[in-house]
């Protein structure tokens, strides 16, 4: 549904990536994989580079989610021309918090010297950024708050075993090593009238998981169950490949219907960022002939909750006026359809 009551604008976005870009040859070298494996990644995944919050040689974690999210938040606030004091509510989405408690959102708030305001953290996947924006928009729309800092990110260090024998891993675990990357992003939303900043015309998230098995499972272990045989991370990539394009198409159609917009009205499309190969397929299927595609996954890898923020950062840097942008994200653990629409009108 469109956020009603107050006009909400996206006034800044920022992102952070750890370490240098790692190409597939670097991964192949670390894991002792050969040219065939690199060709397979290039052909069926398509990711050129990704960033990892760990040292690929030693496996030592170098950055935390809170480190990256704090850097992204600072960049977003800078671009918005605001400071931490202006933030009166925070919402963060992640599937991979550094610790379950304290939550990452509160660690980030602490580092930014934000206190005395409400903060929320969502346990979320590839729809997490839209979910966080949806929550923030509802809070801003209520009139209780003026400026929201929305964050999202993931760090897969604890799942990334640099000593793994990729040749011996089952397929549902193998893909995780090449698909994902670490990163965080942030956006600042406000009800202030900021000319030139795109207006959030619609945001929607919807659970679509009834009777559907999870497409992705992330487990966490404690002292009593740490020796469980179940893999900490696995995915049903076949189900993802089949379902995500159809779910994405539904979201795009519904957003257009809600807003009364035509396909040709869309100048920018921010499609789901599973992998470059999947994103290309979905973008073709969504069929927005005049839209410029805004994607990041070929360079960042799939950064989960951070993806949309990378896309928003690129969009805000490029968005002309007038222009309309549509974003779609699908979460495939228990299947969440999500999307949002932004507009810059001719007068600003």
């Amino acid at each position, binding site marked *: 549904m469109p956020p009603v009551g107050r006009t909400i604008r996206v006034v800044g976005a920022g992102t952070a990536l750890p370490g240098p870009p790692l190409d597939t040859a670097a991964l192949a070298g670390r894991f002792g994989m050969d040219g065939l494996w690199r060709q397979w990644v290039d052909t*069926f995944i398509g990711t050129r580079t990704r960033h990892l919050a760990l040292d690929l040689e030693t496996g030592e974690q170098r950055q935390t989610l809170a480190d990256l999210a704090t850097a992204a938040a600072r960049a977003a606030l800078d671009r918005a021309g605001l400071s931490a004091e202006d933030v009166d509510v925070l919402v963060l989405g992640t599937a991979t918090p550094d610790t379950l408690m304290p939550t990452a959102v509160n660690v980030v708030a602490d580092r930014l010297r934000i206190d005395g305001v409400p903060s929320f953290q969502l346990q979320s996947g590839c729809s997490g950024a839209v979910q966080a924006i949806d929550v923030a928009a509802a809070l801003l729309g209520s009139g209780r708050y003026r400026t929201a800092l929305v964050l999202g990110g993931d760090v897969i260090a604890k799942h990334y075993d640099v000593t793994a024998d990729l040749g011996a891993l089952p397929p549902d675990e193998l893909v995780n090593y090449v698909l994902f990357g670490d990163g965080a992003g942030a956006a600042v939303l406000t009800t202030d009238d900021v000319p030139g900043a795109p207006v959030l015309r619609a945001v929607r998230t919807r659970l679509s998981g009834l009777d559907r098995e999870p497409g992705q499972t992330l487990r966490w272990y404690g002292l009593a169950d740490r020796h469980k045989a179940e893999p900490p991370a696995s995915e049903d990539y*076949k189900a993802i490949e089949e379902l995500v394009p159809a779910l994405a198409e539904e979201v795009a159609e519904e957003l257009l219907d809600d807003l009364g917009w035509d396909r040709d009205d869309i100048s920018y499309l921010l499609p789901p960022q599973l992998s470059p190969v999947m994103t290309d397929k979905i973008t073709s299927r969504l069929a927005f002939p005049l839209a410029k595609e805004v994607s990041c996954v070929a360079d960042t890898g799939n950064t989960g909750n951070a993806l949309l923020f990378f896309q928003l950062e690129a969009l805000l840097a490029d968005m002309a006026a007038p222009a309309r942008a549509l974003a779609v994200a699908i979460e495939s653990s228990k299947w969440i359809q999500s999307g949002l629409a932004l507009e810059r009108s001719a007068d600003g």
Partner: protein
Amino acid sequence: MAETPPDWFVEILRDELDIDVTADDLTRSLDELPGWDSVKLLTLLVALERHTGATLSLPDLLEARTLAAVHETATR
């Protein structure tokens, strides 16, 4: 028409890919093979490299449309 692959090839499919193939499956189009996908292809090719000691090239193998043709290309 590709030659019938040897038993060790069928064993790799069964033991490492968890695919029980019939003789017909070996010459069936990969698109029609239940459970077949690009990740299975990679697993098979990695296993073939290990078994044969040869270095394989993916572009050549993408031309193969059946398991028998994959075997023939990989062991050529």
